[in-house]
């Protein structure tokens, strides 16, 4: 098994790198922004003002110097609270000064010639906002990958597509598909089965499953659900009842009916009666309930009487009752009937689930023969006379 080594995700280096980058960018942006604002603002008034200050003027002194002095005095005053010093350094007339990145040149046209004013712009770096914003944005950018949801998985997309195809709203489909993905693979597989093989619409399946507490189903319940589906030919309601049914074997002796974990099973009368007999043994003695197969040479005649009584009551075959009365309870008959029961149960619920309701066996330490009992300890029997079951117990304990 190969292990992939990932770099530590919470590394401090990435945010730190962003912080440094942003600091540099912010520094440049702050100074560039100041320069742009000053240039923009000066370009609006300087040309017109300079023309008037320099042309057709009769005052004493050099109007250029006076203009520069007045402008600089005013700029100092206007920017006094902004940690910026902007000064008009020179006025050029006639010749064009080459462009230079760290100069602020304001050009204008007057009488066919180009004039230019060269300004120096020096502003103090405002460190506090720069540091604070850099820190905030470094954290934001570094966390952005985690804030943005990861791309949807292929299975999420499959569920989403199916939900949307059924006409669900995006909001509902989004929530439903997310919930489905939180289920175990086995649960998801069951949902695929419901929607794929049984062609059940997810729109109605999901609320039903949620109401039944499907996500808490264990593996066995899922198996029962599948059995339920097969039994009911895809009726989810019935199938869920099977899955949620109590883990018990229910005999209704009056009608010869048998319900196994909510699944009705039809047995022919003789195996049914033997099954009921084993069940009643187990029910009377939950700790034991064993019955040792009679010896081949000597069938059990004592027990045969009570079994034949039971047969009378549960509608056993006449022929089988006669045989019991004539020959007693034989090992071969018991083996045959247990096998029939097994075949029927396995056919309906499958070997795996049936095992719990079939028989367990061990060697009887006294006789050396095999003894059998019902594996299920939870058994309910309706419609059997209490005296009958008591009799069975008494005889069994005598044996």
């Amino acid at each position: 098994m190969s292990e992939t080594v990932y770099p530590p995700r919470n590394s401090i280096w990435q945010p730190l790198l962003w912080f440094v980058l942003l600091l540099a960018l912010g520094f440049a942006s702050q100074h560039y922004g100041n320069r742009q604002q000053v240039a923009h603002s000066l370009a609006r008034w300087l040309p017109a003002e300079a023309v008037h200050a320099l042309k057709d003027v009769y005052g004493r002194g050099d109007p250029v110097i006076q203009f520069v002095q007045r402008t600089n005095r005013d700029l100092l005053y206007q920017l006094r609270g902004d940690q910026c010093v902007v000064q008009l350094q020179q006025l050029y007339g006639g010749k064009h000064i080459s462009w230079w990145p760290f100069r602020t040149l304001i050009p204008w046209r007057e009488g066919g010639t180009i004039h230019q004013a060269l300004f120096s712009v020096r502003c103090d770096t405002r460190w506090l906002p720069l540091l604070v914003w850099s820190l905030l944005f470094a954290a934001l950018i570094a966390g952005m990958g985690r804030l943005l949801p990861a791309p949807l998985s292929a299975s999420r997309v499959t569920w989403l597509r199916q939900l949307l195809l059924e006409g669900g709203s995006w909001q509902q489909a989004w929530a439903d598909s997310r919930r489905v993905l939180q289920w175990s693979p086995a649960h998801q597989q069951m949902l695929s089965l419901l929607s794929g093989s049984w062609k059940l619409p997810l729109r109605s399946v999901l609320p039903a499953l949620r109401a039944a507490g499907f996500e808490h189903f264990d593996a066995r319940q899922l198996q029962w659900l599948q059995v339920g589906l097969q039994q009911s030919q895809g009726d989810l309601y019935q199938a869920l009842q099977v899955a949620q049914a109590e883990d018990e074997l229910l005999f209704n002796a009056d009608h010869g009916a048998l319900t196994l974990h909510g699944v009705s099973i039809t047995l022919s009368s003789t195996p049914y009666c033997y099954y009921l007999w084993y069940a009643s043994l187990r029910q009377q003695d939950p700790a034991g309930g064993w019955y040792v197969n009679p010896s081949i040479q000597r069938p059990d005649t004592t027990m045969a009487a009570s079994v034949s009584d039971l047969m009378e009551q549960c509608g056993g075959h006449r022929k089988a009752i006669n045989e019991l009365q004539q020959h007693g309870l034989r090992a071969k008959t018991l083996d045959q009937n247990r096998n029939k029961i097994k075949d029927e149960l396995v056919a309906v619920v499958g070997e795996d689930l049936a095992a719990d309701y079939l028989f367990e066996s061990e060697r009887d330490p006294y006789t050396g023969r095999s003894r059998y009992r019902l594996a299920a300890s939870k058994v309910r029997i309706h419609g059997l006379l209490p005296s009958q079951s008591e009799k069975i117990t008494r005889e069994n304990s005598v044996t």
Partner: protein
Amino acid sequence: MQKSGVVTSALLWGCSSVSVRRALLAVLLLLAVIAFTRLVQQDLPQLYPGQYRFLHCTTASESADLPLFRVLSVVDNGAQAFARQLCDSSVMGQYYSAVEVHWRPRSELSARDIVEERYDLFWSRDRRVQSLVPNFDQYYQTVARLPDYSVAWFSLQQTPALTPEYFYSHSIGLLEDMQSNSHFLMPLMHLKELGVDLTRTRIRYYPNYHALQQAFWSGDVDLISDSDWLQEMTGDRPLFRTLIDNHASMGRWYARRHRPRAVDCVLVQGLQQLVDSLQDAELLVTFDNVPEACR
């Protein structure tokens, strides 16, 4: 395939694609960086021009509803003291809330300034205002007439000779301002009288008076025409002079006809002081249309 089906498929693809997520991250990153660069920038105040072409002061008036007293001159010399004197006057305070003294090139005085009576007091020459608005006298009247003055050719090398040949061989400095009496109109009219062919002269035009003087003192031009006041600035240098005209008009100060007569005396005092500050020699100013007691 239905339209909604296409949209759904596209959305599903977008939500599940790693490339789309990367692109989205890149866009977010870009937006964050743009927002960051905007946020770290400082908002500087809007810079505005200084008030380089007028002075403003408020009078002692209690009411701000009173009108403004506006003065138009050509030079800013003495403007500060003049404005101060008007604002300090208690009589002005009774009629005006503030005083503004403007100085602008002469060419900017327009007929509209006159018919709308934008200025309460301004300097110009009679021929100029009459040409702008023929019935000028209905709006304004003269309050002060400045004395005539002399205009002459000046040279640093020799006394200018009044012959065409002299002017062909010497460069002449004039002003671009076509309203200028001493530095444009009079010298050119004089050259015409002397029969000088202007195409054969070397005349250079300067944007302002300071530039013209600099050119003269530095020898860029041989000749300029100026008033005798130039002699005050000569210093130790020899200066040669030939008269053009000694009856050049220095212009007049005009005031609105519609004005409170009570302020006349303050205006007279202010104008006298303004004219006196222009040069050392005392100028004889004649005041018209003002009460006798003020003169």
